[in-house]
Protein backbone atom coordinates (compact mmCIF):
# COMPACT_ATOMS: atom_id res chain seq x y z
CA UNK A 1 0.00 0.00 0.00
CA UNK A 2 2.81 2.32 0.88
CA UNK A 3 4.41 1.58 -2.44
CA UNK A 4 1.24 2.56 -4.24
CA UNK A 5 0.82 5.81 -2.34
CA UNK A 6 4.41 7.02 -2.18
CA UNK A 7 5.73 5.67 -5.45
CA UNK A 8 3.11 4.60 -7.96
CA UNK A 9 0.63 7.47 -7.69
CA UNK A 10 3.19 10.31 -7.90
CA UNK A 11 4.72 8.63 -10.96
CA UNK A 12 1.34 8.27 -12.65
CA UNK A 13 0.45 11.89 -11.90
CA UNK A 14 3.79 13.00 -13.31
CA UNK A 15 3.20 10.88 -16.39
CA UNK A 16 -0.13 12.49 -17.12
CA UNK A 17 1.18 15.99 -16.40
CA UNK A 18 4.29 15.68 -18.58
CA UNK A 19 2.31 14.25 -21.47
CA UNK A 20 -0.17 17.09 -21.13
CA UNK A 21 2.65 19.65 -20.95
CA UNK A 22 4.31 18.25 -24.08
CA UNK A 23 1.19 18.30 -26.19
CA UNK A 24 0.24 21.73 -24.91
CA UNK A 25 3.66 23.03 -25.96
CA UNK A 26 2.95 21.71 -29.43
CA UNK A 27 -0.27 23.70 -29.40
CA UNK A 28 1.03 26.90 -27.79
CA UNK A 29 4.41 27.56 -29.43
CA UNK A 30 3.16 28.07 -32.99
CA UNK A 31 0.87 30.73 -31.53
CA UNK A 32 3.67 32.61 -29.82
CA UNK A 33 5.42 33.25 -33.12
CA UNK A 34 5.01 36.82 -34.40
CA UNK A 35 3.68 35.92 -37.84
CA UNK A 36 0.82 33.45 -37.84
CA UNK A 37 2.65 30.36 -39.13
CA UNK A 38 -0.47 28.29 -39.73
CA UNK A 39 -1.89 31.09 -41.81
CA UNK A 40 1.29 31.32 -43.87
CA UNK A 41 1.45 27.53 -44.16
CA UNK A 42 -2.10 27.53 -45.48
CA UNK A 43 -1.18 30.31 -47.89
CA UNK A 44 1.86 28.37 -49.13
CA UNK A 45 -0.23 25.28 -49.69
CA UNK A 46 -2.90 27.22 -51.53
CA UNK A 47 -0.28 28.87 -53.72
CA UNK A 48 1.09 25.46 -54.63
CA UNK A 49 -2.41 24.29 -55.48
CA UNK A 50 -1.91 25.04 -59.16
CA UNK A 51 0.46 22.17 -59.73
CA UNK A 52 -0.42 19.93 -56.77
CA UNK A 53 -3.50 17.83 -56.33
CA UNK A 54 -6.12 20.48 -55.44
CA UNK A 55 -8.18 18.02 -53.40
CA UNK A 56 -5.15 17.26 -51.24
CA UNK A 57 -4.48 20.94 -50.63
CA UNK A 58 -8.08 21.62 -49.71
CA UNK A 59 -8.22 18.69 -47.31
CA UNK A 60 -4.96 19.76 -45.73
CA UNK A 61 -6.13 23.35 -45.30
CA UNK A 62 -9.41 22.12 -43.84
CA UNK A 63 -7.75 19.96 -41.20
CA UNK A 64 -5.32 22.71 -40.26
CA UNK A 65 -8.16 25.21 -39.88
CA UNK A 66 -10.22 22.68 -37.99
CA UNK A 67 -7.43 21.58 -35.67
CA UNK A 68 -6.31 25.08 -34.90
CA UNK A 69 -9.77 26.62 -35.37
CA UNK A 70 -8.17 29.85 -36.45
CA UNK A 71 -11.31 31.96 -36.05
CA UNK A 72 -12.64 30.62 -32.74
CA UNK A 73 -11.64 31.72 -29.22
CA UNK A 74 -8.44 30.38 -27.69
CA UNK A 75 -10.11 27.98 -25.26
CA UNK A 76 -12.41 26.66 -27.96
CA UNK A 77 -9.42 26.15 -30.27
CA UNK A 78 -7.59 24.28 -27.53
CA UNK A 79 -10.54 21.99 -26.85
CA UNK A 80 -11.12 21.13 -30.49
CA UNK A 81 -7.39 20.48 -30.84
CA UNK A 82 -7.55 17.92 -28.03
CA UNK A 83 -10.72 16.36 -29.33
CA UNK A 84 -9.05 15.60 -32.64
CA UNK A 85 -5.91 14.24 -31.00
CA UNK A 86 -7.79 11.97 -28.62
CA UNK A 87 -9.69 10.40 -31.47
CA UNK A 88 -6.35 9.78 -33.21
CA UNK A 89 -7.28 12.07 -36.06
CA UNK A 90 -4.36 14.06 -37.44
CA UNK A 91 -5.98 14.53 -40.79
CA UNK A 92 -4.73 13.21 -44.13
CA UNK A 93 -1.10 13.29 -45.14
CA UNK A 94 -0.24 15.84 -47.78
CA UNK A 95 2.41 14.04 -49.77
CA UNK A 96 0.67 10.69 -49.90
CA UNK A 97 -2.88 11.96 -50.03
CA UNK A 98 -5.41 10.67 -49.00
CA UNK A 99 -3.71 8.21 -46.60
CA UNK A 100 -4.41 9.36 -43.03
CA UNK A 101 -1.36 10.46 -41.08
CA UNK A 102 -2.05 7.92 -38.38
CA UNK A 103 -1.75 5.08 -40.88
CA UNK A 104 1.62 6.26 -42.22
CA UNK A 105 2.93 6.50 -38.68
CA UNK A 106 1.59 3.05 -37.88
CA UNK A 107 3.54 1.63 -40.80
CA UNK A 108 6.86 3.24 -39.79
CA UNK A 109 6.59 2.83 -36.05
CA UNK A 110 7.54 -0.88 -35.80
CA UNK A 111 10.73 -0.28 -37.83
CA UNK A 112 11.89 2.52 -35.57
CA UNK A 113 11.01 0.68 -32.39
CA UNK A 114 12.65 -2.52 -33.61
CA UNK A 115 15.89 -0.86 -34.65
CA UNK A 116 16.26 1.68 -31.88
CA UNK A 117 14.97 -0.19 -28.91
CA UNK A 118 17.32 -3.08 -29.64
CA UNK A 119 20.40 -0.94 -30.27
CA UNK A 120 19.73 1.38 -27.33
CA UNK A 121 19.31 -1.47 -24.88
CA UNK A 122 22.18 -3.54 -26.33
CA UNK A 123 24.66 -0.69 -26.40
CA UNK A 124 23.60 0.27 -22.88
CA UNK A 125 24.41 -3.22 -21.62
CA UNK A 126 27.69 -3.59 -23.55
CA UNK A 127 28.89 -0.06 -22.79
CA UNK A 128 28.21 -0.44 -19.10
CA UNK A 129 30.01 -3.76 -18.83
CA UNK A 130 33.11 -2.56 -20.70
CA UNK A 131 33.06 0.80 -18.94
CA UNK A 132 32.72 -0.90 -15.58
CA UNK A 133 35.57 -3.28 -16.30
CA UNK A 134 37.91 -0.59 -17.57
CA UNK A 135 37.08 1.73 -14.67
CA UNK A 136 37.65 -0.97 -12.09
CA UNK A 137 40.67 -2.79 -13.50
CA UNK A 138 42.61 0.30 -14.56
CA UNK A 139 45.93 -1.45 -15.21
CA UNK A 140 44.72 -3.81 -17.96
CA UNK A 141 46.36 -3.16 -21.35
CA UNK A 142 43.50 -4.50 -23.49
CA UNK A 143 41.01 -2.26 -21.73
CA UNK A 144 43.32 0.72 -22.18
CA UNK A 145 43.30 0.13 -25.93
CA UNK A 146 39.51 -0.04 -25.80
CA UNK A 147 39.45 3.27 -23.91
CA UNK A 148 41.57 4.81 -26.65
CA UNK A 149 39.19 3.63 -29.38
CA UNK A 150 36.23 5.01 -27.46
CA UNK A 151 37.96 8.38 -27.03
CA UNK A 152 38.28 8.51 -30.80
CA UNK A 153 34.76 7.32 -31.69
CA UNK A 154 32.84 9.42 -29.20
CA UNK A 155 33.14 12.91 -30.75
CA UNK A 156 32.63 11.78 -34.37
CA UNK A 157 29.48 13.45 -35.70
CA UNK A 158 26.89 10.80 -36.32
CA UNK A 159 26.26 11.34 -40.03
CA UNK A 160 29.99 11.02 -40.74
CA UNK A 161 30.10 7.66 -38.99
CA UNK A 162 27.04 6.49 -40.91
CA UNK A 163 28.43 7.59 -44.27
CA UNK A 164 31.79 5.96 -43.53
CA UNK A 165 30.09 2.65 -42.78
CA UNK A 166 28.06 2.80 -45.99
CA UNK A 167 31.17 3.53 -48.05
CA UNK A 168 33.18 0.78 -46.34
CA UNK A 169 30.68 -2.06 -46.14
CA UNK A 170 28.23 -1.42 -48.95
CA UNK A 171 30.42 0.24 -51.59
CA UNK A 172 34.01 -0.93 -51.19
CA UNK A 173 33.18 -4.28 -49.57
CA UNK A 174 29.67 -5.12 -50.75
CA UNK A 175 28.72 -7.19 -47.70
CA UNK A 176 25.54 -5.34 -46.82
CA UNK A 177 22.85 -3.57 -48.82
CA UNK A 178 22.99 0.21 -49.36
CA UNK A 179 19.78 0.92 -47.56
CA UNK A 180 16.12 0.21 -47.12
CA UNK A 181 14.43 -2.00 -44.58
CA UNK A 182 14.12 -5.10 -46.76
CA UNK A 183 14.72 -6.09 -50.40
CA UNK A 184 12.28 -4.21 -52.58
CA UNK A 185 9.52 -6.49 -53.80
CA UNK A 186 9.94 -9.00 -50.99
CA UNK A 187 6.74 -10.24 -49.37
CA UNK A 188 6.34 -9.00 -45.81
CA UNK A 189 5.74 -12.22 -43.93
CA UNK A 190 6.99 -14.00 -40.87
CA UNK A 191 9.17 -16.45 -42.75
CA UNK A 192 12.81 -17.14 -41.93
CA UNK A 193 13.95 -15.76 -45.29
CA UNK A 194 12.22 -12.46 -44.73
CA UNK A 195 13.53 -12.12 -41.19
CA UNK A 196 17.06 -12.82 -42.43
CA UNK A 197 16.60 -10.15 -45.08
CA UNK A 198 15.38 -7.62 -42.52
CA UNK A 199 18.30 -8.37 -40.21
CA UNK A 200 20.80 -7.98 -43.04
CA UNK A 201 19.34 -4.58 -43.90
CA UNK A 202 19.27 -3.51 -40.28
CA UNK A 203 22.88 -4.47 -39.62
CA UNK A 204 24.69 -1.30 -40.72
CA UNK A 205 22.28 1.19 -39.16
CA UNK A 206 22.31 -0.85 -35.97
CA UNK A 207 26.11 -1.00 -35.99
CA UNK A 208 26.46 2.76 -36.42
CA UNK A 209 23.98 3.46 -33.62
CA UNK A 210 25.56 0.89 -31.30
CA UNK A 211 29.12 2.16 -31.81
CA UNK A 212 28.21 5.62 -30.57
CA UNK A 213 25.91 4.28 -27.86
CA UNK A 214 28.58 1.99 -26.50
CA UNK A 215 31.12 4.82 -26.51
CA UNK A 216 28.86 7.14 -24.53
CA UNK A 217 27.84 4.51 -21.98
CA UNK A 218 31.40 3.26 -21.64
CA UNK A 219 32.73 6.67 -20.72
CA UNK A 220 30.07 7.61 -18.19
CA UNK A 221 30.21 4.20 -16.56
CA UNK A 222 33.99 4.38 -16.34
CA UNK A 223 33.83 7.71 -14.50
CA UNK A 224 31.12 6.48 -12.13
CA UNK A 225 32.90 3.27 -11.22
CA UNK A 226 36.16 5.10 -10.61
CA UNK A 227 34.28 7.09 -7.99
CA UNK A 228 32.63 4.00 -6.50
CA UNK A 229 36.01 2.26 -6.29
CA UNK A 230 37.21 4.83 -3.76
CA UNK A 231 34.24 4.25 -1.43
CA UNK A 232 34.85 2.83 2.01
CA UNK A 233 32.72 -0.28 1.60
CA UNK A 234 34.89 -1.45 -1.29
CA UNK A 235 37.99 -1.00 0.90
CA UNK A 236 36.39 -2.97 3.73
CA UNK A 237 35.45 -5.75 1.34
CA UNK A 238 39.04 -5.88 0.13
CA UNK A 239 40.42 -5.98 3.67
CA UNK A 240 37.93 -8.73 4.49
CA UNK A 241 39.44 -10.66 1.56
CA UNK A 242 36.24 -10.91 -0.44
CA UNK A 243 37.03 -12.24 -3.89
CA UNK A 244 37.84 -9.46 -6.38
CA UNK A 245 35.21 -10.74 -8.83
CA UNK A 246 32.53 -10.68 -6.17
CA UNK A 247 33.44 -7.13 -5.16
CA UNK A 248 33.30 -6.04 -8.78
CA UNK A 249 30.02 -7.62 -9.78
CA UNK A 250 28.08 -7.55 -6.51
CA UNK A 251 29.24 -4.35 -4.85
CA UNK A 252 30.78 -2.00 -7.38
CA UNK A 253 28.75 -2.64 -10.53
CA UNK A 254 25.43 -2.90 -8.78
CA UNK A 255 25.76 0.49 -7.15
CA UNK A 256 27.23 2.17 -10.19
CA UNK A 257 24.39 0.95 -12.42
CA UNK A 258 21.73 2.94 -10.61
CA UNK A 259 22.54 6.37 -12.08
CA UNK A 260 22.95 4.64 -15.43
CA UNK A 261 19.33 3.51 -15.36
CA UNK A 262 18.35 7.16 -15.36
CA UNK A 263 20.68 7.56 -18.32
CA UNK A 264 18.86 4.76 -20.11
CA UNK A 265 15.56 6.53 -19.57
CA UNK A 266 16.93 9.71 -21.08
CA UNK A 267 18.40 7.93 -24.09
CA UNK A 268 15.05 6.24 -24.68
CA UNK A 269 13.73 9.79 -24.96
CA UNK A 270 16.28 10.53 -27.67
CA UNK A 271 15.20 7.55 -29.77
CA UNK A 272 12.97 9.49 -32.12
CA UNK A 273 15.30 12.40 -32.80
CA UNK A 274 18.48 10.35 -33.01
CA UNK A 275 17.07 8.08 -35.66
CA UNK A 276 16.54 10.82 -38.22
CA UNK A 277 20.06 10.93 -39.67
CA UNK A 278 20.48 7.14 -39.43
CA UNK A 279 17.31 6.58 -41.36
CA UNK A 280 18.17 9.18 -43.98
CA UNK A 281 21.68 7.80 -44.47
CA UNK A 282 20.43 4.21 -44.73
CA UNK A 283 16.98 5.08 -46.15
CA UNK A 284 15.50 2.96 -43.39
CA UNK A 285 11.68 3.02 -43.49
CA UNK A 286 11.17 4.24 -39.90
CA UNK A 287 9.78 7.39 -38.33
CA UNK A 288 12.92 9.41 -39.02
CA UNK A 289 12.68 8.83 -42.75
CA UNK A 290 8.97 9.61 -42.67
CA UNK A 291 9.75 12.83 -40.83
CA UNK A 292 12.33 13.74 -43.45
CA UNK A 293 9.81 13.27 -46.24
CA UNK A 294 7.30 15.31 -44.26
CA UNK A 295 9.76 18.20 -43.92
CA UNK A 296 10.73 18.13 -47.58
CA UNK A 297 7.05 18.23 -48.59
CA UNK A 298 5.95 20.74 -45.90
CA UNK A 299 3.51 18.15 -44.60
CA UNK A 300 2.55 19.86 -41.36
CA UNK A 301 -0.15 17.34 -40.43
CA UNK A 302 2.36 14.53 -40.57
CA UNK A 303 4.97 16.34 -38.47
CA UNK A 304 2.34 17.22 -35.88
CA UNK A 305 1.26 13.59 -35.77
CA UNK A 306 4.79 12.22 -35.39
CA UNK A 307 5.63 14.72 -32.66
CA UNK A 308 2.47 14.07 -30.66
CA UNK A 309 2.74 10.28 -30.91
CA UNK A 310 6.41 10.43 -29.97
CA UNK A 311 5.62 12.46 -26.87
CA UNK A 312 3.10 9.87 -25.75
CA UNK A 313 5.38 6.95 -26.62
CA UNK A 314 8.39 8.42 -24.82
CA UNK A 315 6.57 9.38 -21.64
CA UNK A 316 5.04 5.90 -21.54
CA UNK A 317 8.43 4.21 -21.99
CA UNK A 318 9.85 6.34 -19.21
CA UNK A 319 6.93 5.49 -16.95
CA UNK A 320 7.66 1.81 -17.49
CA UNK A 321 11.36 2.23 -16.66
CA UNK A 322 10.43 4.29 -13.61
CA UNK A 323 8.08 1.58 -12.40
CA UNK A 324 10.77 -1.06 -12.85
CA UNK A 325 13.31 1.04 -10.93
CA UNK A 326 12.47 -0.34 -7.46
CA UNK A 327 13.48 -3.79 -8.71
CA UNK A 328 17.06 -2.54 -9.05
CA UNK A 329 17.32 -0.07 -6.20
CA UNK A 330 16.58 -1.50 -2.77
CA UNK A 331 16.64 1.96 -1.20
CA UNK A 332 13.50 2.94 -3.06
CA UNK A 333 11.71 -0.29 -2.20
CA UNK A 334 12.09 0.19 1.51
CA UNK A 335 11.74 3.94 1.80
Amino acid sequence: MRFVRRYLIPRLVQYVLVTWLGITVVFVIPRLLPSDPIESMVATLQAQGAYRDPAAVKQMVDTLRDMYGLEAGLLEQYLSFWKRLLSGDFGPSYFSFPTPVIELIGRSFPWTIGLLLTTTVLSWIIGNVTGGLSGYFTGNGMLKIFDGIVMFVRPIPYYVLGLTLVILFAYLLPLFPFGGGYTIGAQIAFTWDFIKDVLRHAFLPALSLSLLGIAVNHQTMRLIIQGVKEEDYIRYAKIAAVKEQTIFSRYAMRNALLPQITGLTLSLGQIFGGALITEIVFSYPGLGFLLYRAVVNSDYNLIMGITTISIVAITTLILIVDLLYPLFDPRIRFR
Partner: protein
Amino acid sequence: MKTLRELLRDARFSLGAVVALVLILLALLSFFSPYNPTEWRVVPRDMPPSWKHPLGTDSKGQDIFWQMTFAVRNSLALAILAAAISRVIAVTVGLVAGYSGGILDRVLMFISDGFLVMPLFLIIVMLAMLVREHMNTVNLALLLGVLGWAWDARLIRSQVLSLREREFTYTAILSGTPMRKLIFNEYSLFVMPLVFTTLINNMAWVIGMEITLALIGLTNPDIPTLGAMLRWAVSYQAMLLGLWWWILAPIAISIALFVALYLVSLGISEYLDPRARIQRVGVR
Protein backbone atom coordinates in the same frame (compact mmCIF):
# COMPACT_ATOMS: atom_id res chain seq x y z
CA MET B 1 45.66 32.58 -14.74
CA LYS B 2 46.82 29.89 -12.32
CA THR B 3 43.81 27.78 -13.25
CA LEU B 4 44.65 28.09 -16.92
CA ARG B 5 48.27 27.07 -16.35
CA GLU B 6 47.15 24.04 -14.39
CA LEU B 7 44.62 23.12 -17.07
CA LEU B 8 47.26 23.35 -19.77
CA ARG B 9 49.30 20.72 -17.96
CA ASP B 10 46.68 18.22 -19.17
CA ALA B 11 47.78 17.14 -22.63
CA ARG B 12 44.21 16.55 -23.82
CA PHE B 13 43.07 20.00 -22.75
CA SER B 14 46.03 21.70 -24.45
CA LEU B 15 45.45 19.75 -27.66
CA GLY B 16 41.77 20.76 -27.64
CA ALA B 17 42.66 24.37 -26.86
CA VAL B 18 45.22 24.54 -29.69
CA VAL B 19 42.75 23.12 -32.22
CA ALA B 20 40.06 25.52 -31.01
CA LEU B 21 42.52 28.43 -31.35
CA VAL B 22 43.37 27.44 -34.92
CA LEU B 23 39.67 27.30 -35.77
CA ILE B 24 39.09 30.73 -34.22
CA LEU B 25 41.98 32.11 -36.29
CA LEU B 26 40.37 30.55 -39.36
CA ALA B 27 37.11 32.28 -38.49
CA LEU B 28 38.92 35.61 -38.09
CA LEU B 29 40.54 35.15 -41.51
CA SER B 30 37.07 35.51 -43.03
CA PHE B 31 37.34 39.28 -42.50
CA PHE B 32 40.19 39.34 -45.02
CA SER B 33 38.46 37.16 -47.59
CA PRO B 34 38.96 38.29 -51.19
CA TYR B 35 35.57 36.84 -52.18
CA ASN B 36 32.00 37.54 -51.18
CA PRO B 37 30.67 34.28 -49.65
CA THR B 38 27.18 34.70 -51.06
CA GLU B 39 28.27 35.34 -54.64
CA TRP B 40 28.38 32.47 -57.13
CA ARG B 41 30.83 31.92 -59.97
CA VAL B 42 33.64 34.08 -58.67
CA VAL B 43 36.27 31.39 -59.39
CA PRO B 44 36.48 28.51 -61.92
CA ARG B 45 34.20 25.61 -60.92
CA ASP B 46 35.12 22.11 -59.64
CA MET B 47 38.88 22.72 -59.34
CA PRO B 48 40.86 20.31 -57.14
CA PRO B 49 43.05 21.79 -54.38
CA SER B 50 45.94 23.87 -55.73
CA TRP B 51 48.18 26.73 -54.57
CA LYS B 52 45.68 29.25 -55.80
CA HIS B 53 42.73 27.51 -54.14
CA PRO B 54 44.11 25.57 -51.15
CA LEU B 55 40.94 23.52 -50.66
CA GLY B 56 39.75 23.57 -54.25
CA THR B 57 36.56 25.12 -55.58
CA ASP B 58 32.98 23.85 -55.72
CA SER B 59 30.29 23.55 -58.38
CA LYS B 60 28.85 26.91 -57.36
CA GLY B 61 32.12 28.56 -58.35
CA GLN B 62 33.21 29.45 -54.83
CA ASP B 63 36.61 29.02 -53.23
CA ILE B 64 36.18 26.36 -50.55
CA PHE B 65 38.92 27.65 -48.25
CA TRP B 66 37.49 31.13 -47.97
CA GLN B 67 33.96 29.77 -47.87
CA MET B 68 35.11 27.65 -44.95
CA THR B 69 36.37 30.65 -42.98
CA PHE B 70 32.88 32.16 -43.17
CA ALA B 71 31.27 28.83 -42.28
CA VAL B 72 33.41 28.42 -39.16
CA ARG B 73 32.73 32.02 -38.15
CA ASN B 74 28.96 31.68 -38.56
CA SER B 75 28.74 28.28 -36.91
CA LEU B 76 30.80 29.48 -33.94
CA ALA B 77 28.79 32.70 -33.66
CA LEU B 78 25.54 30.72 -33.74
CA ALA B 79 26.85 28.28 -31.13
CA ILE B 80 28.04 31.03 -28.78
CA LEU B 81 24.82 33.02 -29.11
CA ALA B 82 22.52 30.02 -28.60
CA ALA B 83 24.62 28.65 -25.74
CA ALA B 84 24.67 32.09 -24.07
CA ILE B 85 20.88 32.36 -24.27
CA SER B 86 20.35 28.91 -22.79
CA ARG B 87 23.01 29.60 -20.10
CA VAL B 88 21.04 32.63 -18.89
CA ILE B 89 17.92 30.49 -18.58
CA ALA B 90 19.74 27.50 -17.06
CA VAL B 91 21.59 29.58 -14.46
CA THR B 92 18.49 31.51 -13.44
CA VAL B 93 16.33 28.41 -13.17
CA GLY B 94 19.06 26.41 -11.44
CA LEU B 95 19.89 29.10 -8.87
CA VAL B 96 16.29 30.00 -8.09
CA ALA B 97 15.11 26.37 -7.89
CA GLY B 98 18.08 25.26 -5.83
CA TYR B 99 18.01 28.17 -3.42
CA SER B 100 14.31 28.74 -2.88
CA GLY B 101 13.22 25.09 -2.70
CA GLY B 102 9.59 24.31 -1.91
CA ILE B 103 6.81 24.72 -4.41
CA LEU B 104 8.81 26.99 -6.76
CA ASP B 105 11.54 24.36 -6.97
CA ARG B 106 8.97 21.66 -7.69
CA VAL B 107 7.33 23.65 -10.48
CA LEU B 108 10.63 24.61 -12.12
CA MET B 109 11.97 21.08 -11.95
CA PHE B 110 8.72 19.71 -13.33
CA ILE B 111 9.08 21.99 -16.33
CA SER B 112 12.71 21.07 -16.87
CA ASP B 113 11.87 17.36 -16.52
CA GLY B 114 9.22 17.87 -19.14
CA PHE B 115 11.78 19.41 -21.48
CA LEU B 116 14.19 16.55 -20.83
CA VAL B 117 11.66 13.88 -21.61
CA MET B 118 10.05 15.48 -24.64
CA PRO B 119 11.32 14.68 -28.13
CA LEU B 120 12.95 18.11 -28.36
CA PHE B 121 14.42 17.43 -31.73
CA LEU B 122 11.00 16.86 -33.27
CA ILE B 123 9.67 20.02 -31.70
CA ILE B 124 12.67 21.95 -33.04
CA VAL B 125 12.04 20.52 -36.51
CA MET B 126 8.37 21.47 -36.30
CA LEU B 127 9.14 25.02 -35.26
CA ALA B 128 11.95 25.41 -37.77
CA MET B 129 9.51 24.36 -40.47
CA LEU B 130 7.01 26.97 -39.34
CA VAL B 131 9.54 29.82 -39.41
CA ARG B 132 11.37 28.56 -42.46
CA GLU B 133 11.00 31.82 -44.34
CA HIS B 134 12.41 33.92 -41.51
CA MET B 135 15.22 31.54 -40.62
CA ASN B 136 18.50 33.32 -39.95
CA THR B 137 21.33 32.96 -37.45
CA VAL B 138 19.62 34.97 -34.70
CA ASN B 139 16.29 33.15 -34.95
CA LEU B 140 17.99 29.77 -35.02
CA ALA B 141 20.04 30.73 -31.96
CA LEU B 142 16.85 31.81 -30.17
CA LEU B 143 15.12 28.55 -31.07
CA LEU B 144 17.99 26.33 -29.92
CA GLY B 145 18.76 28.52 -26.91
CA VAL B 146 15.23 28.56 -25.55
CA LEU B 147 14.89 24.77 -25.84
CA GLY B 148 18.31 23.51 -24.73
CA TRP B 149 18.70 24.44 -21.06
CA ALA B 150 16.91 21.74 -19.07
CA TRP B 151 19.75 19.35 -18.26
CA ASP B 152 22.17 22.13 -17.33
CA ALA B 153 19.62 23.79 -15.06
CA ARG B 154 19.41 20.49 -13.19
CA LEU B 155 23.19 20.30 -12.82
CA ILE B 156 23.39 23.86 -11.50
CA ARG B 157 20.51 23.25 -9.12
CA SER B 158 22.22 20.20 -7.63
CA GLN B 159 25.38 22.26 -7.11
CA VAL B 160 23.39 24.99 -5.34
CA LEU B 161 21.64 22.39 -3.18
CA SER B 162 25.01 21.21 -1.89
CA LEU B 163 26.24 24.80 -1.39
CA ARG B 164 23.18 25.54 0.71
CA GLU B 165 24.23 22.95 3.25
CA ARG B 166 27.73 24.41 3.68
CA GLU B 167 28.92 26.31 6.77
CA PHE B 168 29.41 29.62 5.00
CA THR B 169 25.78 29.78 3.92
CA TYR B 170 24.63 29.60 7.54
CA THR B 171 27.23 32.18 8.59
CA ALA B 172 26.11 34.50 5.82
CA ILE B 173 22.41 34.10 6.63
CA LEU B 174 22.97 34.58 10.36
CA SER B 175 24.98 37.74 9.74
CA GLY B 176 22.09 39.11 7.68
CA THR B 177 23.34 38.85 4.09
CA PRO B 178 20.41 39.27 1.69
CA MET B 179 19.62 36.34 -0.60
CA ARG B 180 20.41 38.29 -3.74
CA LYS B 181 23.89 39.13 -2.48
CA LEU B 182 24.51 35.58 -1.30
CA ILE B 183 23.59 34.14 -4.66
CA PHE B 184 25.46 36.65 -6.80
CA ASN B 185 28.58 37.21 -4.67
CA GLU B 186 29.12 33.81 -3.13
CA TYR B 187 27.34 31.10 -5.06
CA SER B 188 28.08 32.37 -8.55
CA LEU B 189 31.80 31.83 -7.91
CA PHE B 190 31.17 28.15 -7.25
CA VAL B 191 28.70 27.76 -10.09
CA MET B 192 30.89 29.55 -12.69
CA PRO B 193 33.09 26.55 -13.65
CA LEU B 194 30.01 24.40 -14.09
CA VAL B 195 28.46 27.08 -16.29
CA PHE B 196 31.60 27.03 -18.40
CA THR B 197 31.65 23.24 -18.97
CA THR B 198 27.96 23.12 -19.79
CA LEU B 199 28.48 26.09 -22.14
CA ILE B 200 31.04 24.13 -24.15
CA ASN B 201 28.91 21.00 -24.28
CA ASN B 202 25.91 23.05 -25.30
CA MET B 203 27.93 24.68 -28.11
CA ALA B 204 28.74 21.24 -29.50
CA TRP B 205 25.04 20.34 -29.31
CA VAL B 206 24.06 23.53 -31.15
CA ILE B 207 26.60 22.99 -33.94
CA GLY B 208 25.45 19.39 -34.39
CA MET B 209 21.82 20.50 -34.41
CA GLU B 210 22.53 23.17 -37.02
CA ILE B 211 24.18 20.60 -39.26
CA THR B 212 21.24 18.22 -38.91
CA LEU B 213 18.67 20.95 -39.59
CA ALA B 214 20.68 22.15 -42.58
CA LEU B 215 20.92 18.63 -44.00
CA ILE B 216 17.15 18.22 -43.98
CA GLY B 217 16.78 21.69 -45.46
CA LEU B 218 15.46 23.77 -42.59
CA THR B 219 18.09 26.51 -42.43
CA ASN B 220 18.89 29.29 -44.84
CA PRO B 221 21.47 27.78 -47.24
CA ASP B 222 22.64 31.25 -48.36
CA ILE B 223 24.26 31.90 -45.00
CA PRO B 224 27.52 29.92 -45.09
CA THR B 225 27.70 27.63 -42.05
CA LEU B 226 29.15 24.15 -41.66
CA GLY B 227 25.68 22.73 -42.15
CA ALA B 228 25.00 24.83 -45.24
CA MET B 229 28.32 23.79 -46.83
CA LEU B 230 27.52 20.13 -46.25
CA ARG B 231 24.05 20.55 -47.60
CA TRP B 232 25.28 22.09 -50.86
CA ALA B 233 27.90 19.37 -51.25
CA VAL B 234 25.34 16.64 -50.60
CA SER B 235 22.67 18.14 -52.85
CA TYR B 236 25.17 18.55 -55.72
CA GLN B 237 26.17 14.88 -55.28
CA ALA B 238 29.78 15.91 -54.66
CA MET B 239 30.65 12.41 -53.51
CA LEU B 240 29.36 10.69 -56.66
CA LEU B 241 30.94 13.27 -58.97
CA GLY B 242 34.34 12.67 -57.38
CA LEU B 243 34.60 16.18 -55.91
CA TRP B 244 35.89 14.72 -52.65
CA TRP B 245 37.52 17.95 -51.48
CA TRP B 246 34.16 19.66 -51.43
CA ILE B 247 32.55 17.24 -48.99
CA LEU B 248 35.72 16.37 -47.08
CA ALA B 249 36.49 19.96 -46.09
CA PRO B 250 33.36 20.67 -44.02
CA ILE B 251 33.41 17.16 -42.56
CA ALA B 252 37.05 17.42 -41.48
CA ILE B 253 36.53 20.87 -40.00
CA SER B 254 33.42 19.83 -38.08
CA ILE B 255 35.18 16.76 -36.69
CA ALA B 256 38.07 19.01 -35.60
CA LEU B 257 35.59 21.39 -33.98
CA PHE B 258 33.73 18.62 -32.13
CA VAL B 259 36.95 16.98 -30.94
CA ALA B 260 38.35 20.32 -29.75
CA LEU B 261 35.19 21.23 -27.81
CA TYR B 262 35.02 17.72 -26.36
CA LEU B 263 38.64 17.70 -25.18
CA VAL B 264 38.37 21.16 -23.64
CA SER B 265 35.22 20.24 -21.74
CA LEU B 266 36.78 16.93 -20.63
CA GLY B 267 39.84 18.81 -19.36
CA ILE B 268 37.72 21.26 -17.40
CA SER B 269 35.41 18.68 -15.90
CA GLU B 270 38.34 16.53 -14.78
CA TYR B 271 39.91 19.62 -13.28
CA LEU B 272 36.68 20.28 -11.41
CA ASP B 273 36.45 16.74 -10.04
CA PRO B 274 39.54 16.32 -7.88
CA ARG B 275 38.98 12.57 -7.57
CA ALA B 276 39.47 12.10 -11.29
CA ARG B 277 42.43 14.48 -11.20
CA ILE B 278 44.19 12.52 -8.50
CA GLN B 279 43.76 9.33 -10.49
CA ARG B 280 45.19 10.99 -13.55
CA VAL B 281 48.26 12.35 -11.79
CA GLY B 282 48.66 9.03 -10.01
CA VAL B 283 48.88 10.38 -6.46
CA ARG B 284 47.30 8.00 -3.99
